[in-house]
């Protein structure tokens, strides 16, 4: 099977911008390829545009930041610059979808999920229009721009709205595949991706199924369920746990909605403990979604690694990942807590 590179391999080596040296307890091999998730979004749009004339791209004055400039250069007649008007853009995309287009809109996640939330709810979701929302700059790793631009509520907001789906890919290739899958999915989809170069942990031929999680590394003592860049941190945590004699399974749960409940239940039954990890607020995010599935199927101890009800701040991405407790070492600590509770049962 063409799966992701094993964590023992070079593929999970030190990341350049998300400085893994911040956690010296985890030894990692040589350099890993680093690439922007948003480039996966931008490249996929061009390929989709080649294949399907219904693909239309809208942007709110952030063409290069969201990397839709590739599409704009290739298909200027299907590229719509909306200017700085996210609410307008969301409803315009709805109108395009009502006429059979497959519109992808692109802006920062903070604006896509919050500023135009009512337009997403009423125009797009209530009508179940085939709009694809590209939310760039998700997470604390956005860095120096600070709290207003560090989107950390998208999973909670989007998954609360009926008809909406949300996918949070972990690297360049998965973002490419998630964007293609969004185009193939009939209905509104939110795609959350980041700003920074992040480790490429999957390959072009790694399986990706919309709405299904992937077991990236097997284990028996507990399961680490992560999305986005935290998948890399979970794989690093698995190495550290292995060194302590703990066998951790790692699941890339890239689609918080629709949620792969069957896989979550299987992991709960087979490993008896779960740690979730997300670069997102703790309330209602991936951890919340997994917990909802766990309490309704197979109750096991859980720990949630996430941002705990606070706004972000300026800083270097690596500094912020450390300060907000979103590192492999934080996952390791959560794993030890959850295993203590598992043993005490």
């Amino acid at each position, binding site marked *: 099977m063409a799966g992701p590179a094993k964590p023992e391999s070079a593929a999970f080596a030190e990341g350049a911008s998300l400085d893994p040296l911040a956690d010296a307890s985890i030894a990692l091999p040589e350099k890993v390829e680093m690439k922007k998730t948003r480039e996966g979004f931008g490249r996929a749009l061009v390929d989709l545009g080649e294949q399907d004339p219904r693909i239309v791209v809208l942007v709110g004055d952030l063409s290069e930041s969201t990397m839709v400039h590739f599409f704009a250069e290739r298909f200027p007649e299907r590229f719509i610059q909306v200017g700085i*008007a996210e609410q307008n853009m969301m409803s*315009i995309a709805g*109108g*395009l979808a009502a*006429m059979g287009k497959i519109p992808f809109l692109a802006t920062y996640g903070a604006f896509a999920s919050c500023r135009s939330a009512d337009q997403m709810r009423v*125009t797009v979701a209530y*009508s179940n229009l085939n709009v694809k929302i590209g939310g760039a700059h998700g997470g604390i790793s956005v860095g120096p721009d600070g709290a207003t631009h560090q989107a950390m509520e998208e999973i909670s907001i989007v998954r609360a709205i009926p008809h909406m789906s949300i996918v949070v890919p972990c690297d360049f290739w998965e973002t490419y595949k998630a964007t293609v899958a969004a185009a193939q999915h009939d209905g509104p989809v939110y795609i959350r991706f980041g700003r920074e170069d992040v480790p490429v942990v999957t390959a072009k031929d790694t399986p990706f199924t919309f709405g299904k999680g992937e077991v990236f590394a097997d284990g028996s003592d507990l399961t680490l369920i992560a999305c986005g860049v935290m998948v890399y941190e979970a794989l690093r945590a698995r190495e550290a746990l292995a060194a302590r004699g703990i066998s951790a399974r790692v699941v890339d749960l890239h689609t918080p909605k629709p949620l792969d409940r069957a896989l979550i239940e299987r992991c709960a039954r087979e490993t008896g403990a779960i740690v979730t990890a997300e670069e997102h607020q703790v309330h209602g995010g991936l951890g919340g979604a997994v917990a909802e599935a766990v309490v309704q199927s197979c109750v096991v101890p859980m720990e949630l690694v996430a941002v705990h009800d606070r706004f972000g701040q300026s800083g270097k991405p690596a500094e912020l990942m450390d300060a907000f407790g979103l590192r492999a070492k934080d996952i390791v600590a959560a794993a030890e807590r959850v295993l203590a509770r598992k043993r005490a049962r």
Partner: protein
Amino acid sequence: MTLNTLAAGDLKAGQGAGRLGWSVEMLRAKALQVRRDIITLLAKAQSGHSGGPLSTADFGTALFFSELNVDPKHPQWPERDFWHFSIGHVTPVIYSLMAERGYFPLADLMKFRAFDGHAQGHPSKHDTPGIEVSAGSLGQGLSVCCGVAMASRIDQHPRRIYCVMGDGEQQEGQIWEASMFAAHYKLDNLCGIIDYNRKQIDGDVQDIMGIKPLADKWRSFNWNVIECDGHDMADILRAFAAARAHRGSPSVILAHTVMGQGVSYMADDYHWHGKPPRMDQAEIALKELGTSYAEWSARLLAN
């Protein structure tokens, strides 16, 4: 010619496909029927908005029975024009126009806002055939229509796009984002219609949050502005024709209307924005409109 002198068949002809191009007399007769529908369905539901539906009834009738190229039996007909009420709360007039035009049976109007009907309080694509985009949160419809207009341009489709807005709705910032967009892209396939009845739910628009000078605002946003008497059928048709003939920029029709028009005790009274008549009040209104609840509800249920 009045409704009484028109053969019933003349008005029934309004359910076919295409652009009907009805005469002023027939439109006036149909608008009277629409007002009877509105009062009757509101009285039955004992819930819903009275004022706006009555102020939009005349230009709404002109839109549906003269201007629009649609096929009610095939709402997704590819050649169709696109219509959208950004003011989702005027469902009584929307559903009346749709039923009279043939989208669904008139009997469905008697299940307005009912649990076992499709006619939701605000228009729902999921529930009602012919509603293309749901509405209910003010300010979004013109943007939706901009998207439809852009899609039509990309497809080189001759479709015309009509968006009905409220005057109070002009207070929503998104209206002006959409206004800027449509003018920037010179969307001359787009025609906005503003129900300028000068009232909103809390009172007079100018007292709540003034919108004047409204025509100058739209002109300064580079739209072709047309004003008309929104209760004068000939003037309404003139306005639609002027919008249709205009090239190079989007058009907006400021239809000067009276909230509650057609019912003496509702006219120009903002208290009737968001409430239905009690049954005794409905009987008074229907008597003024030349019928009774028993007669008109029977007509709806039979069709």
